[in-house]
């Protein structure tokens, strides 16, 4: 996966709570066997109307957010189904950072594994970001090393991230290769615990 260290981008404010993965990518698009090309289906039923035309009222379609790469949303983002197609769709559409007061566990993990940085900030901080980005194009600057989010209007917030995942994201490491360096230990565990099929 692509490393992420410092990142700046346009904010897209999605002021909704409990956005579930069925909304992020509806199930009719889960039948593909590839990992790529899911961006066209992102927020499908919100972004497009019944005839497949863009729904102008939906925030992603507004011209000031067209090039957004940082999504800011309400709490419990990514709840529901475990589909990794959700972060694949976000990434493919161009999002590298998602900011929300809280995330569903599986979705959060799935982001980390695909080089998307999920950042959880307080309700007030997220509220401020949503407010600032309302109706206009705003930039945010994310520094993973410093664990900081800033903008030009004086916004500054620190965020928490597990040090392990921080390293993985900073370096773009492949988790499986890392685990396989512990192969002997796994084998030893299997013998001692007598894991049976």
């Amino acid at each position: 996966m692509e490393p992420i260290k410092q990142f700046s981008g346009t904010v897209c404010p999605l002021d909704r709570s409990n956005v579930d993965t069925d909304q992020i990518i509806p199930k009719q698009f889960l039948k593909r066997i590839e990992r790529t090309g899911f961006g066209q289906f992102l927020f499908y039923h919100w972004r497009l109307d019944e005839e497949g035309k863009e729904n102008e009222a939906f925030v992603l379609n507004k011209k000031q957010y067209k090039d957004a790469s940082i999504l800011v949303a309400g709490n419990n983002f990514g709840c529901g189904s475990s589909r990794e197609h959700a972060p694949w769709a976000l990434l493919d559409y161009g999002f590298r950072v998602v900011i929300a007061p809280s995330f569903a566990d599986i979705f959060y993990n799935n982001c980390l594994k695909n080089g998307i940085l999920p950042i959880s900030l307080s309700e007030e901080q997220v509220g401020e970001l949503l407010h600032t980005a309302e109706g206009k194009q705003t930039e945010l600057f994310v520094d993973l090393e410093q664990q900081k989010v800033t903008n030009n209007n004086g916004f500054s917030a620190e965020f928490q991230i597990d040090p392990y995942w921080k390293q993985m994201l900073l370096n773009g490491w492949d988790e499986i290769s890392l685990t396989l360096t512990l192969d002997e230990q796994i084998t030893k565990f299997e013998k001692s615990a007598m894991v049976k099929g």
Partner: protein
Amino acid sequence: MAPKTIIDKIWEQHKVHGEEGKPDLIYIDLHLIHEVTSPQAFEGLRLNGRKVRRPDLTYATMDHNVPTADKNKINDKIAHKQMATLEKNCQEFGIELADIHHPDQGIVHVIGPELGLTQPGKTIVCGDSHTSTHGAFGALAFGIGTSEVEHVLATQTLWQSKPKTMEVKVNGKLAPGVAAKDLILAVIEKFGIGVGTGYVMEYTGEAIRSLSMEERMTVCNMSIEAGAKAGLISPDDVTISYLKGRRHVPSGEAFDQVAARWQSLASDEGASYDKTIEIDASEIEPQVTWGTNPSMGSSINGNVPYPDQFESQSERESIQRALDYMGLEPGTPINEIEVDYVFIGSCTNSRLSDLRAAAEIVKGKTVHSGVTAIVVPGSQTVKLLAEQEGLNTIFINAGFEWRESGCSMCLAMNEDIVPPGKRCASTSNRNFEGRQGNGSRTHLVSPAMAAGAAIEGKFTDVRNFQAALA
């Protein structure tokens, strides 16, 4: 020794590697696989020249995409390709597969327990959020994403930070006519869909102990709807007797040994949890959800809420949006809401006891005109057993369709779709916008409540039916 929870015990027994400030490397005892979340994982293995480390601990089936009207007619080409891909992957990597024609085929969370693959003390994962179902046996079972599926295939382990523990204490007893589904819906209604975030929940208390294994699965299944990573129940005699004689469970003397080990896993008296929540089971009534997430629910005798009953602006907005989507007026009595579709199925409520509960209501009656009602057994085994009891005849005579096993209308990936604007009483677990089809409106209920809605054409307190039967 300090008393421990079952979660602590399972964690300790599965820790392969741990370092300060890092997640632990946890061994996985059982990896279940289905057609939708696995193709990209196998592709990843191939690209890197990796093998499946323990095909013998891996088991696959097809459920999400399979047609339920006729197994031999897979009209959707892309779905067909996904199933063919799973078959090819299982062959290539030596994994046992219950394919669409196999007698063991079914929803992955129904067949794991049925075959005895699901056992107390195991760590169980699957690329599916309702893996929490298996927690009913006292297993630590949770859903994972496709990258993690690939990781487990390659290494049989996962990096996991130890989750916090939450006790969900269900005191008292469920009243007659109130189902396990009502219990878990009431818990989610009371505490919200975020209450479990970051936790593994252990359900305890008198009401839980008196549930059958199948009912416990219904409860644990929906832990994820409360935001929890997993939900589980300490094993007891009910667990042991369910498992005895199942195909993948040891028999004879070996069974006694393993059963004793299982019993010892139960949380110790006095073990402490990071958080405890409590609910009184005796106060719970049959539930119906009216909104677009599982916490937006009410008892059958309640009303659709008014948005201004809620405190925060954002809450009011989300309630209003839900009501708009659902096409409901505030203040409408729940038992006046009319339904167009009834779906009895899904990994929450498609086991034999669920079908029995529904059939009891349906017997000798007719599905209300204008209602389309389908029963989708959770597995081929459930289907067969139900047919041996004549449940299929009861349903068919009443006007239900009797289908092949699969996920079906729970997520509407196959042809079983609720059309836009139509209202469905569903025994599944999610009522998100569009879950059962674009524009579909889902109300989550128990199997008996779904059956009652099919007969009456609207939601009804199923206890009235049951009183008439008694």
